[in-house]
């Protein structure tokens, strides 16, 4: 199909800087958000996702300035997530220049926020982020976790994705919690189960360690887009190399 599968670098942002985790212990400053966004745009990134990892509610406005600066210089779609609790938060991020806002924990604790935000700003602007992991040994049942994977909710992941579609989500950002940070690839059965169940696009996330994983996410996981952080941030691969690998595997990409 002519519609290209998307590659989306994900940038963690706090205090106005892009940071990257090092061996699960600390965060290292990775640079200026505008410069990094420009670099990925030049490499052919199809979109960018910014995750505000600021822990406290202080300094929430810093992300707004970051988005405004990036959106003034980089003209590809920008998604922002992290700490979105109410419709007013969605509005602030969109007004700052975000094209889509990703809602994660709040979608579980207060799903009406998803419905109200989609009604107000359009489904195209609302992404629901789902953190899921397998709850049985043969990896055929998955449940939703919140608060960065610490809190179990008992919600079935596939049913939850369908519910969020009904509530007006325009896209699902699906993170395989049992793979996040492992570099062993996406949870493909989970990704495929959700992508096949819903009619809206699904972005696969969590576990990417090499370019074959991106290919597998699309071919085996039926993902519409693949998101990765560390393989790009640490310079292991460029976005362009990722796209060339996908094209070589027969996947339609924008090159």
């Amino acid at each position, binding site marked *: 199909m002519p519609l290209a599968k998307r590659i989306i670098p994900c940038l963690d942002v706090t205090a106005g800087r892009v940071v990257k985790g090092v061996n699960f212990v600390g965060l290292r400053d990775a640079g200026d958000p505008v410069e990094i966004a420009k670099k990925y745009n030049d490499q052919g990134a199809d979109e960018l996702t910014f995750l505000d990892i600021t822990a406290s509610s202080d300094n929430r406005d810093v992300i707004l300035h970051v988005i405004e600066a990036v959106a003034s210089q980089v003209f590809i779609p920008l998604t922002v997530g992290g700490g979105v609790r109410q419709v007013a938060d969605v509005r602030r991020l*969109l007004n700052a220049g975000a*094209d889509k806002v990703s809602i994660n924990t709040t979608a579980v604790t207060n799903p009406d926020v998803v419905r109200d935000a989609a009604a107000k700003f359009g489904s*195209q602007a609302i992404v629901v982020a789902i953190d899921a992991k397998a709850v049985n040994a043969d990896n055929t049942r998955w449940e939703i976790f919140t608060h960065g994977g610490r809190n179990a909710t008992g919600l079935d992941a596939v049913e939850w994705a369908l519910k969020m579609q009904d509530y007006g989500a325009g896209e699902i950002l699906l993170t395989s919690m049992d793979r996040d940070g492992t570099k062993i690839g996406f949870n493909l059965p989970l990704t495929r189960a959700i992508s*096949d169940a819903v*009619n809206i696009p699904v972005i696969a996330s969590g576990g990417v360690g090499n370019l074959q994983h991106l290919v597998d996410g699309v071919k085996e996981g039926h993902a519409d887009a693949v998101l990765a952080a560390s393989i790009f941030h640490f310079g292991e691969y460029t976005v362009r190399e990722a796209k060339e690998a996908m094209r070589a595997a027969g996947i339609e990409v*924008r090159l």
Partner: protein
Amino acid sequence: MKIAIVDYGMGNLHSVVKSMELVAENHASVVLTADASVIDAADKVVFPGQGAMPDCMAHLEESGLIASVRRAAAEKPFLGICVGAQLMFEQSAEGPTASLGIFKGEVVRFPPEQMVDAQGQKLKVPHMGWNEMFITRAHPLWHGIADGERFYFVHSYHFMPAEDITVVESAYPYRFAAAVARDNIFAIQCHPEKSSTAGLKLLQNFVHWNGN
């Protein structure tokens, strides 16, 4: 030269403004406005829109800007983007509200029963992402943009012109009109302000377009 971007209260116009400012350089000043007299005084007009078409039409009516938008579309280089472009047709399946009717034709939803690709895999709606643009008729706004170039789309509805105005088509899975043009008007379904280099080229061409 002054380019007015019509602000009738439908969402984020930050990127439209910033991208136009970037390509306008010193050739034009770009102003985001909800003031009819500013639209009337502008040399060129950009008419954006996002979200649901009935909401857009309702906001446009409340804004009191319809008459000046119509005047601009009748005589100035005029660029409709996304739902702004959809509003220029007569009717949309998204709601019972009549739209501006500047172009003959209607706006329809991607039909669920046709959303399957050649390999039998389900195609998602909204049609979201970068898709190819095929030139069906040469147009000055497409100058310097390759046939088959990809632009960023995000929409569930697309226009079906009932007059011969299509200049660019895309495919999902069937061919549909992605851009239409007549006289001084150009209207595009996807988002040039989000389509990186190719999109900026289109906007730059608009800055330099005299409407012929």
